């Protein structure tokens, strides 16, 4: 290929000669920065997020996230409804992991009320929230694969997620917005054969998880697109308040189920996976994906242990400890739980007189994780930006609340 410069000075047209055909390859090259709006309706932003990118050619010099398109005034609503009525709202925050959100809120209020729960309630809570964690990670992995151009893993993920949703629907009556974990207990006990079916699912799903990681994690194209992209060093990640798989992807072994344990997690044996730097560069997009893939296996382990240890349903009343009227004494609490996306915390302030909180703030994990986007995107290529957003695994319902 031969390159010609036409007419010398003053013209910005560059020509290329190829097999005696003259092809104009660059004409009136604009060299200034361009502002490019990605979203709110863009498949790679996983919902209604808008990124205002300043681009220099294919390189993003800065990407500023704009949020709030899905703001539904969660915190304002909380001040006007009773405590039990807030639980359905928490479902609608992180709609991919409703059980985990409910559990975090229930823990916060229970801490404020200082009530003790029946053991079987704790076990059922852990089983359903770990099932929900697997379902949520499956969506995260599946949609991440789609972002990077792989369609089959997505179908595999959604096929298996369907089984989990069926199980949770059987227990609670709803597929995504459960209202199952109540303050002080559960809405219902699980159906008679539930534990058996969950056991069957675990046996069915184990080989499928291996198959999935064969298909995706060992895929050359996938690794090329994610390895070494969007590296976040551990100290910066902590300073940004990252949590969950994002923080562990940077090599920090921090899991609230371990480090600030709640419910029955201290009795259970599970590992907190962090990347070792062999398959991925620590802190890159691939590490974050790997952590999610490994966590699925840990969740399966937790579920198996719970199925073994769960007390029998004889004489069990899931609503035994549910208070008739929730009116906590004056005080405040900050309690959190490990969600699939990181630390979901609730700051609740009670005045001691009202049956609804004076102030209820939800500390959303993706909101905090996303706030590093501006720094992460600097100097990346546009296709890599898509890989980075996907690896953050945002749910806009929780970001905007």
């Amino acid at each position: 290929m031969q390159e010609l410069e036409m007419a010398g000075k003053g013209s910005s047209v560059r020509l290329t000669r190829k097999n005696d055909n003259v092809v104009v390859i660059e004409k009136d090259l604009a060299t200034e920065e361009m502002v490019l709006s990605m979203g709110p309706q863009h498949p790679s932003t996983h919902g209604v997020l808008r990124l205002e990118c300043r681009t220099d050619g294919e390189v993003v010099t800065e990407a500023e996230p704009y949020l709030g398109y899905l703001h539904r005034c969660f915190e304002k609503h909380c001040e006007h409804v009773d405590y039990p009525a807030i639980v359905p709202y928490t479902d609608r925050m992180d709609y991919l992991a409703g059980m985990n959100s409910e559990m975090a809120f229930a823990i916060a209020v229970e801490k404020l009320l200082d009530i003790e729960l029946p053991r079987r309630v704790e076990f059922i809570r852990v089983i359903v929230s770990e099932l929900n964690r697997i379902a949520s990670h499956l969506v995260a992995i599946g949609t991440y694969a789609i972002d990077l151009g792989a369609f089959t893993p997505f179908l595999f993920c959604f096929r298996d997620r369907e089984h989990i949703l069926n199980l949770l629907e059987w227990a609670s009556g709803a597929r995504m917005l459960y209202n199952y974990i109540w303050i002080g207990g559960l809405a219902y006990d699980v159906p008679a054969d539930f534990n058996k079916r969950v056991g069957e699912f675990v046996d069915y799903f184990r080989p499928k998880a291996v198959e999935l990681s064969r298909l995706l994690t060992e895929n050359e194209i996938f690794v090329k697109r994610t390895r070494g992209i969007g590296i976040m060093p551990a100290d910066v990640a902590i300073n940004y308040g990252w949590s969950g798989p994002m923080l562990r992807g940077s090599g920090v072994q921090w899991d609230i189920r371990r480090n600030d344990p709640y419910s029955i997690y201290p009795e259970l044996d599970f590992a907190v996976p962090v990347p070792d730097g062999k398959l991925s560069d620590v802190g890159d997009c691939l590490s974050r994906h790997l952590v999610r893939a490994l966590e699925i296996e840990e969740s399966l382990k937790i579920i198996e242990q719970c199925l073994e240890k769960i007390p029998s349903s004889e004489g069990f009343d899931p609503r035994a400890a549910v208070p008739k009227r929730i009116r906590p004494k004056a005080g405040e609490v900050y309690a959190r739980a490990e969600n699939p996306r990181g630390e979901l915390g609730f700051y609740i302030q009670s005045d001691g007189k009202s049956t609804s909180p004076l102030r209820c703030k939800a500390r959303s994990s993706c909101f905090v994780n996303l706030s590093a986007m501006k720094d992460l995107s600097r100097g990346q290529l546009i296709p890599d930006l898509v890989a980075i957003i996907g690896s953050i695994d945002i749910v806009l319902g929780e970001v905007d609340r």
Partner: protein
Amino acid sequence: MEEAANVSKEVQLCAATYSVIHEKFGDAISAFDQNPTMPFFEVLDTALWTDIALFMRDHPKLKFNYMACLSGVDYPEEEKLGIVCNLESIGVYPHRIAVKVRCARQGGSIPSVACVWHTANWHEREAYDMLGIQFDGHPDLRRILCPDDWEGWPLRKDYRVQESYHGIKVPY
């Protein structure tokens, strides 16, 4: 602080960190409130908040390197607005503590700690958006969840929603 034997271990750790901060800043911070659900102290001299934050982050005995949460709160009876910060130390110490900072409802402001913890950047923007708290020295204090031209501060107790927004009827 340690005399109460029924205080949990977590609160004792918290009290130990408080005494380090109290030694340095003295009367600029309030007494330690050792309630079991969220032990906290309050910054009385608001102007020192950034210094205290930096001290808490960098002191070798404290190392509060992680800000879990920053919530804006309205205190209408005292004519004040405030923030509650939940801090902890990841990977260094097992302690965690909450800090409160308050300012006047009219014309008051709180120094920004976005330069100390990056987490505070968006959380302070949210507190500004929802309660109208001014943060001095914040790099980019804009509304974050509401549109830029929204009127009023939604989470204040005396908030009245606007009648219409760009010709769209708001309250239903």
